[in-house]
């Protein structure tokens, strides 16, 4: 290595480039806030500056306001938590009027998580959001029950997945991530259905369905009985599904589920994720974005890598 190359390498090592292209959404680093725990950003915006975060996936938005589930909505579990918020949200119009203007002021990529009870509702929300400035992408949450098909989640069936993604694809030119539910036997089939229907990226995993029982009251602990399990407890499941999805599709993957350290984030990237999102981890540490970004930077420096590209899926090859 001559002196010039050594210097160049040195330079790279000093400032590795963390930026990634997530299906057309350009991120300054691979760390996003997962949909839900972060709400519409305002509260965490008071708490920390967003300098180390690349973007926010805002809480699920539906056509009409949803009131959500009765309390208790959350409870802690070993190395995780259950939530049954029930996708409470103020509805599309209120989101656009009250929350989007604030989100536009942030120097962050804004991805809107879209929920619905029918293909039509998904499509309407996506269409309306596509007309608004300041939105960098959509994330289609297909864990919602398909009311017309007996209440099973769209995302548990490849055909229903294809239909809903296709319908939304027709309505929007925004980068479109499809967020899969882990409560399936074969995640690869679902990921492929989403890809074929036009998704620009796959997000996973949403929460695992779970419950706890209050043995004093002899009743389910959560108001809704069932809730979604998140946090470090589920990370091995999430990582396995990211790996399987990455084997199944060519579009990029946004990995999430239990990330609380830079090493966790790296594991997702090495399994095949282009970027990662954090939900529950922010509850343990509101400054987690900084921990992850710094940790990834240090890893790249230590390995003498200029960026994350070479690491994506490396454990699979």
């Amino acid at each position, binding site marked *: 290595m001559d002196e010039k190359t050594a210097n160049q390498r040195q330079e790279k090592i000093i400032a590795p480039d963390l930026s990634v292209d997530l299906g057309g959404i350009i991120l300054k680093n691979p760390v996003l806030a997962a949909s839900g725990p972060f709400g519409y950003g305002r509260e965490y915006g008071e708490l920390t500056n967003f300098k180390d975060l690349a973007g926010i996936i805002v809480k699920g938005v539906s056509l009409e306001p949803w009131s959500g589930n009765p309390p208790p909505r959350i409870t802690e579990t070993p190395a995780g938590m259950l939530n049954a918020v029930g996708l409470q949200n103020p509805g599309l119009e209120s989101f656009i009027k009250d929350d989007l203007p604030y989100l536009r002021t942030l120097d962050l990529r804004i991805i809107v998580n879209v929920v619905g009870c029918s293909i039509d509702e998904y499509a309407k929300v996506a269409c309306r959001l596509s007309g608004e400035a300041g939105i960098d992408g959509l994330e289609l949450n297909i864990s919602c029950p398909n009311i017309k098909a007996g209440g099973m989640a769209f995302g548990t069936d490849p055909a229903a997945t294809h239909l809903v993604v296709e319908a939304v694809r027709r309505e929007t030119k925004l980068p479109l991530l499809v967020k899969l539910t882990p409560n399936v036997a074969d995640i690869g089939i679902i990921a492929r259905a989403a890809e074929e229907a036009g998704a620009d990226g796959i997000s996973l995993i949403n929460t695992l369905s779970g419950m706890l029982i209050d043995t004093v009251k002899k009743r389910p602990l959560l108001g809704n009985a069932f809730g979604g399990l998140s946090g470090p407890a589920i990370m091995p499941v999430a990582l396995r599904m990211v790996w399987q999805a990455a084997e199944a599709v060519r579009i990029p993957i946004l990995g999430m589920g239990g990330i609380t350290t830079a090493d966790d984030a790296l594991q997702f990237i090495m399994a095949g994720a282009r970027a990662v999102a954090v939900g529950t981890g922010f509850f343990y540490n*509101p400054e987690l974005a900084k921990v992850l970004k710094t940790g990834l930077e240090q890893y790249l420096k230590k390995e003498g890598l200029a960026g994350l590209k070479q690491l994506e899926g490396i454990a699979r090859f």
Partner: protein
Amino acid sequence: MLLLKEQPGVKYRQESCPVLENRSMGPGFCRITLAAPAIASLVEPGQFVQIFMPQEHPHMLPRPFSVHKADPENGIITILVEIKGQGSRLLASREPGSFLKLLGPLGNGFPPPPPGSILVAGGMGVAPLAFLAESVKYSRTLLYCARTADLLICPEADFNIPGLQIMRATDDGTAGFRGTAADLLSGCIAEAPAVFACGPRPMLVAVKEICLKRRVRAWLSLEERMACGVGACVGCVVPTIKGYKRVCRDGPVFPAEEVILDG
């Protein structure tokens, strides 16, 4: 509305706080004093802090605790802890000199109690109400109630506050009046302009009923399981006549007539 303060600027802080003292208050209870200058200078009665768990427990949610005393001059706050599960047990075992990360003050807090107000504390409900009692100078009455004498963990000396009348009650009569908080309240509510209450759910239900019947304004401080503590996750809601409200952000203090306690 008087209660739900608008929060234009950020009014809470994260601090890494040394434990100054950790004193047992009888079996199952302790009182922890922490150096938390920013929080001490901002906190108002009825507000709470989220206490993050020590590093050896990286996968536990923070736990909410009411501020019991605040000394802004010395930058000190005190909390009362009832040991219920793993989180409170960990806090109870923290040695002086160790650190705890705190986020606060959170929540809306109580509105200022008018002269002659009655403060109803059930068990650990005394934590925020003692703070409220100390925050004003004029006359007010604190009803301090529990199932049995051992659960009245705050000693008499704690309430050596000028102008404060204090009445105790226990369900089993082992200390003070024999009866429930509701019994005691019914007997003395006549002249009161307002009631402020914190304690177990059944007590709050009774207080609400009494106050609505007598048309006395009442403010109830509620508890719910929390995750973020700042209003983002919508995990800690209670039903109110205006829909679900977040205990951590819209509360923990709610007007009795708004909150739906057994819905």
